[in-house]
């Protein structure tokens, strides 16, 4: 047993244990020992998990590259005929990265949560849910087969629902939770369909199957030849899986729940709805990248959705006033970037953006939460401004994270986003690049708008709030600052070749996740050709072509990079002009009717919610109303009639029972009783009477014998 094998099972189990413990005894502990003890208990399990994750990460770096996929069987799970599911955890570079993200950010946010939830009466419940979430997320990440992953997938969905509706006494929050849950169900149905397809074909084709990713990867060529309803199987599974990802990772058209999910406490928004859970879809795609490699049409579809999401949610972000809503749309947009990377076969770039995004977006959310608490739970940016002086740590951390998300050179977002745009250009199409490029500028604009409206200029808060506004305690700001530093520096893990780096992150992932080296469609054909040439496609990423193509791209790469840097600087500067330097200019533009119309459309999120309300929800309501009426009239009528008939029959039977059956029984009883009474009166107890009567009877008998027989 190596170190990794012995500690990894504890990583997801500990938070589950913490959730159980806090769920059962949290309230009593809170009442007895107060907030600090409860909070420290809540943070301890994530902290231990983080320590184990970090040490395992160090350990796996010492393992030989070929042996970096470590499967840790725990026990058998489902064992029915050909289906042999096992509880097995899989620790490899991909899950190692996710473990780092989830546990470290999770721990920081737990600590931050101690400050944010200060004084809340459901303090212990909050930590119980957060621990439960962490456990589920770690299970999702570490699961060796699809079923365990799905279990974690549903677990995080549940925690998301519980935590969005955490303050469920307010109806809006409860509704937001419900919305998230229901929209996610739609996605999960797709994911489940995909899983069942995989399970079905695995069981019919391979005999015994354990549905593990290893098995799936080794058998993928067999599956590639299958069709379902005339469509290539892998394309269908790919689309199904992506529908699951659409729900969980908030892509068009299932993104509508994420902005509403901001009803939950801010630590929840930071952990679940920015850093970890919503990236589960990206992680899942990375996990089954080999499947998508053989499904170029599915990837094309994903490209389309990702680009649309990336662009449209960014434009909505420009027109929001709620600080958390801006960040929420920003998250949707950034998730679009990740899927864009995945869809052009740049799997490692997508995962790397996941990593950097987790850092800077968690930081942004936590800092915004800090601001919200300082302003007594005001979220409207129109009532903020000038806060940098009052809250320096929060403010500068926020600015650092904003630099990262806009892609300021040498920050983390710069490396990850640039990689994605480059891959979108070279392996997707220049059009995809253009959408991503424009969205990057919009990102920079709305982020700086947010910064300027919140931290700079004159305050628009009322006097009382402004005077009481102060920097948050250490437990709140230290995690923010740590993440801000991470947001600035983490990008150096994956410096691309043309900037003199070695793409270390890509290399680190290489044992499990191979990027495509050309456009998905071309790559697919190449594989097909290789298959026809000889039946063993040794190198599925076409190394031969790689060398020819990579020669003269450096200039283009530099060019695109400089273009996007210039473009983001320009839009950031535009925000500066509009919101700080010349607010008059903005007002002038906004006073035009056309501008106001555009703004109204953006502010109302393209009326998508209203569209869904009209197209999906209202017809469904009507349908349900009709079904309800049908139910009441026809079905209930039938049931009631049957009941009525039953009652009448029962009454008749009851009468029969009372009168005849009971009558017979009672009559028998009555006659026995009466006969007994009569007979007992003969037993007078007077011996002389008895003897006399027996004498008489004797005489009668003798007399009758003599008279009639004699």
């Amino acid at each position: 047993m190596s170190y990794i094998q012995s500690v990894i099972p504890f990583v997801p189990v500990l938070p589950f244990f913490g959730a159980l413990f806090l769920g059962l005894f949290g309230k009593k502990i809170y009442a007895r020992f107060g907030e600090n003890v409860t909070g420290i208990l809540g943070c301890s399990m994530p902290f231990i998990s983080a320590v184990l994750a970090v040490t395992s990460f160090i350990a796996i770096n010492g393992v030989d590259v070929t042996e970096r996929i470590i499967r840790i069987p725990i026990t058998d799970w489902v064992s029915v005929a050909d289906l042999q599911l096992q509880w097995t955890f899989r620790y490899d570079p991909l899950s190692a990265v996710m473990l780092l993200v989830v546990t470290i950010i999770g721990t920081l946010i737990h600590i931050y949560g101690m400050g944010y939830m200060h004084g809340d009466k459901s303090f212990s419940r909050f930590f119980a849910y957060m621990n439960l979430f962490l456990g589920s997320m770690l299970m999702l990440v570490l699961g060796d087969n699809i079923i365990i992953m799905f279990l974690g997938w549903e677990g995080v969905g549940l925690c998301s629902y519980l935590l969005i509706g955490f303050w469920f006494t307010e109806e809006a929050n409860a509704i937001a939770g419900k919305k998230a849950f229901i929209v996610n169900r739609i996605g999960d149905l797709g994911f489940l369909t995909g899983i069942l397809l995989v399970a079905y074909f695995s069981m019919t084709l391979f005999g015994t199957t354990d549905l593990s990713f290893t098995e799936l990867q080794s058998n993928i060529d067999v599956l590639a030849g299958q069709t379902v309803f005339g469509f290539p199987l892998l394309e269908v599974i790919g689309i199904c899986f992506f529908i699951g990802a659409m729900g969980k990772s908030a892509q068009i058209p299932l993104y509508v729940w994420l902005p509403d999910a901001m009803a939950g406490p801010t630590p929840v928004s930071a952990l679940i709805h920015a850093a970890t859970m919503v990236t589960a879809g990206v992680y899942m795609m990375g996990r089954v990248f080999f499947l998508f490699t053989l499904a170029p049409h599915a990837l094309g579809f994903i490209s389309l959705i990702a680009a649309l999401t990336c662009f449209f949610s960014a434009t909505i972000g420009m027109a929001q006033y709620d600080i958390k809503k801006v960040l929420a749309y920003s998250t949707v947009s950034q998730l679009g970037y990740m899927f864009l990377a995945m869809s052009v076969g740049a799997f490692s770039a997508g995962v790397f953006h996941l990593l950097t995004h987790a850092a800077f977006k968690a930081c942004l959310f936590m800092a915004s939460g800090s601001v919200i608490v300082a302003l007594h739970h005001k979220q409207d940016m129109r009532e903020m401004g000038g806060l940098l002086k009052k809250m320096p740590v929060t403010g500068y951390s926020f600015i650092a994270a904003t630099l990262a998300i806009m892609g300021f050179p040498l920050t983390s977002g710069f490396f990850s986003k640039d990689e994605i745009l480059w891959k979108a250009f070279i392996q997707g199409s220049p059009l995809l690049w253009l959408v991503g490029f424009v969205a990057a500028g919009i990102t920079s604009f709305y982020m700086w708008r947010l910064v300027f409206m919140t931290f700079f200029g004159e305050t628009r808060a009322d006097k009382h709030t402004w005077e009481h506004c102060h920097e948050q305690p250490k437990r709140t700001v230290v995690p923010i600052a740590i993440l801000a530093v991470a947001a600035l520096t983490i990008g150096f893990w994956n410096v691309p070749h043309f900037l003199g780096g070695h793409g270390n992150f890509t290399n680190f992932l290489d044992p499990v996740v191979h990027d495509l080296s050309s456009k998905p469609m071309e790559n697919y054909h190449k594989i097909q050709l290789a298959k026809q040439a000889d039946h063993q496609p040794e190198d599925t990423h076409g190394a031969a072509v790689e060398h020819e193509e990579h020669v003269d791209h450096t200039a283009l790469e530099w060019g695109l990079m400089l273009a996007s840097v210039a473009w983001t600087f320009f839009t950031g500067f535009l925000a500066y002009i509009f919101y700080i330097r010349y607010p008059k200019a903005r007002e002038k533009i906004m006073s035009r009717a056309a501008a106001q119309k555009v703004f109204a459309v953006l502010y109302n999120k393209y009326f998508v919610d209203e569209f869904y309300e009209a197209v999906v929800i209202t017809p469904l309501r009507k349908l349900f109303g009709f079904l309800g009426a049908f139910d009441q009239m026809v079905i209930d009528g039938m049931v009631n009639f049957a009941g009525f008939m039953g009652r009448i029959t029962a009454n008749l039977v009851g009468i029969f029972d009372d009168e005849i059956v009971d009558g017979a029984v009672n009559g028998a009883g009555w006659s026995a009783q009466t006969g007994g009474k009569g007979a007992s009166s003969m037993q007078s107890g007077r011996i002389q009477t008895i003897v006399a009567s027996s004498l008489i009877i004797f005489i009668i008998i003798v007399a009758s014998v003599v008279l009639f027989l004699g």
Partner: protein
Amino acid sequence: MGLTGFLTVSAVLFTLGLVIFISRKNTIAILMGVELMLNAAALNFVAFARFTPSQASQLDGQIFAVFIILLAAAEAVVALAIALSVYKNLHQIGADKLASLKG
């Protein structure tokens, strides 16, 4: 004197016993009536034995009579003991009063 004379005496005796049994209230008297009826039966046995044509079983009736006398003695002992015990406990021996076996 033939068999009829014996049987007549026996019948008279039995009837007297029966009438005493039914009519007297005193338990002791009732016992006496019982004795009379027993003796009537014994007389019948002896008389039938004497006048039976079979010589082989001439003593059967006498043996029955002896047994009946024996039985009467034993019965008298037990019955008188009961009568005494009843009198001790209930301070009376009137047969019409002793009706606790009433059904």
